[in-house]
């Protein structure tokens, strides 16, 4: 298992979070829909219910959700940095274990979203403590990424720029996050633009920059075409400048008391200037995104000529053509090393795979049943919303029929 690429590891950890956190929001939403459709009182005080219950349920999902959002991007960064520093990921084992610890500890912090809900000093203190604790494995990862770059032979491709941008922006977002961890400090910050600054630094500066790094890294593998590096650099710098212009001033407007979710504000508040700068930054991000979109689109008119390993990566996806044939690998490779395509201390690079499969490979054909089954769900939903029971039944019938035909679908010969 400790030969798996870091992206695969982070994804695996993320899926454990998904499978455990989503049932919580499902329950919360079902209870809410019962309140709305059938007049129950789970969350309604007048009927004996409690809105705090909603908050607990929602945030028990909501906090693991943010780790679901960030761990894959961290996985991407852990792939991109070694390739463009020509050095293995520093502290691979610790990076993997930190991911596990983050996922585990992520369950213990949810009420830091509820510091102003009147939980009491004991609950507040406990959650403040656990929240601060979770900064530790995160910091471990950051130092290991720096260790990966240190002393490496660095190529500043667009993908690497976004990965380094991720590290810097995520640190800033993490710092504002740590200031939220302190309950008294958070009482001033909660429901102000300071929180908006935090979430956008970690989500945009974190997840999105990380995913952009992944897009520039894996686009040749996925489509067989290279993205333009010059357009990519324009995209990167416009995005970095735009996001900092957009979100940094929000720390200040938040601390000056500008609340969230308001559609106007008084000029007496003294935050007009910050808002104007934020707006300029937002439009810069918009422009950067259009540049990126153009970069993506123009590849459609290019020939499919990307090499199998344009970046000199070490992991298995770079051992096959770009884009891969439908069966992926002519022969399933045997993996001895964590970096199969590189020469390491203990292992020679993997021998190239044969160009043609030794025997015909059977690949499953398509199926209509996933799509048909899926269509039953919105039909069900439309019936529920328009309070039309017959339509609900039609939706349920489509789903059941779809599953039945799916299960008994004959194997192709």
């Amino acid at each position: 298992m400790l030969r798996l690429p870091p992206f695969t590891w982070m994804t695996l950890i993320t899926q454990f979070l998904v499978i455990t956190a989503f049932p919580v929001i499902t329950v919360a939403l079902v209870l809410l829909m019962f309140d709305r459709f059938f007049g129950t009182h789970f969350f309604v005080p007048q009927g004996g219910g409690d809105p705090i219950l909603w908050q607990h349920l929602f945030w028990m999902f909501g906090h693991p959700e943010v780790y679901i959002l960030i761990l894959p991007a961290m996985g991407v960064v852990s792939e991109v940095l070694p390739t463009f520093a020509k050095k293995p990921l520093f502290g691979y084992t610790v990076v993997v274990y930190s991911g596990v610890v983050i996922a585990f500890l992520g369950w213990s912090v949810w009420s830091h979203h509820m510091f102003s809900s009147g939980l009491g000093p004991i609950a507040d203190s406990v959650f403040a403590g656990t929240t601060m604790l979770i900064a530790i494995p995160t910091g471990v990862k950051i130092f290991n990424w720096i260790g990966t770059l240190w002393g490496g032979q660095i190529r500043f491709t667009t993908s690497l720029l976004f990965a380094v941008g991720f590290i810097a922006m995520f640190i800033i977002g993490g710092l504002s996050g740590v200031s939220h961890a302190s309950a008294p400090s958070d009482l001033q910050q909660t429901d102000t633009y300071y929180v908006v600054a935090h979430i956008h630094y970690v989500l945009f500066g974190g997840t999105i920059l990380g995913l952009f790094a992944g897009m520039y890294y894996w686009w040749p593998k996925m489509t067989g075409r290279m993205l333009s590096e010059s357009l990519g650099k324009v995209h990167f710098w416009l995005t970095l400048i735009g996001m900092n212009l957009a979100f940094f001033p929000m720390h200040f407007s938040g601390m000056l008391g500008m609340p969230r979710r308001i559609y106007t504000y008084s000029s007496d508040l003294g935050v007009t200037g910050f808002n104007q700068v934020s707006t300029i930054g937002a439009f810069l991000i918009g422009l950067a995104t259009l540049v990126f979109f153009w970069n993506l689109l123009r590849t459609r008119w290019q020939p499919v000529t990307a090499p199998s390993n344009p970046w000199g990566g070490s992991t298995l996806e770079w051992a096959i053509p770009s884009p891969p044939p439908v069966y992926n690998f002519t022969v399933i490779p045997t993996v001895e090393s964590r970096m199969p395509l590189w020469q390491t201390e203990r292992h020679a690079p993997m021998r190239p795979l044969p160009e043609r499969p030794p025997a015909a490979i059977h690949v499953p054909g398509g199926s209509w049943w996933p799509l048909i089954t899926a269509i039953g769900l919105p039909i069900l939903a439309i019936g529920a919303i328009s309070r039309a029971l017959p339509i609900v039944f039609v939706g349920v019938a489509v789903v059941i029929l779809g599953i039945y035909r799916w299960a008994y679908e004959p194997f192709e010969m």
Partner: protein
Amino acid sequence: MKTWLTTTDHKRIGLLYFWTAFGFFLIGGLEALIIRAQLARPDGGLGVSAETFNQLFTMHGTTMVFLALMPLSAAFFNFIIPLQIGARDVAFPRLNAFSYWVFLLGGLFLNASFIAGPLFGADRLSVAPMRGGSATRTSRRASFRQVPMSISGSWDYRSWASHRWRRASISS
């Protein structure tokens, strides 16, 4: 076209996730730009009403988190993970395809509330029962958010199931 609708190939599904997610990213971005244009001046830069503004930031957040960021990640999960572990596909290809279609349909449904909401004579699009009273009001437009959240949330179960890959290729 038919091959795109019936595909169970993780690479194609990855590309479908990518383009769909990117499309939703642009929509969420547009919502953000309207919000920022409104907030550029103190007393309503754009003349957006309070109710519309509520809808805008609610949709911006929901769209970006659930319809853009998570599916963009899923695009890479789908395309890259089987390749990184030397597999031919995920363990349950049809379930994988089902996940994608549920995501697409849930996302379209959620955004349809902008058009269909007025048709149902709806009022405020609520985020959550913050003050306890609104849960009993029959706000159809709010249901437009909560119901598809359950639908498009379910795709994640499938994406987990698809990760029970065979690791036969890695010698231990």
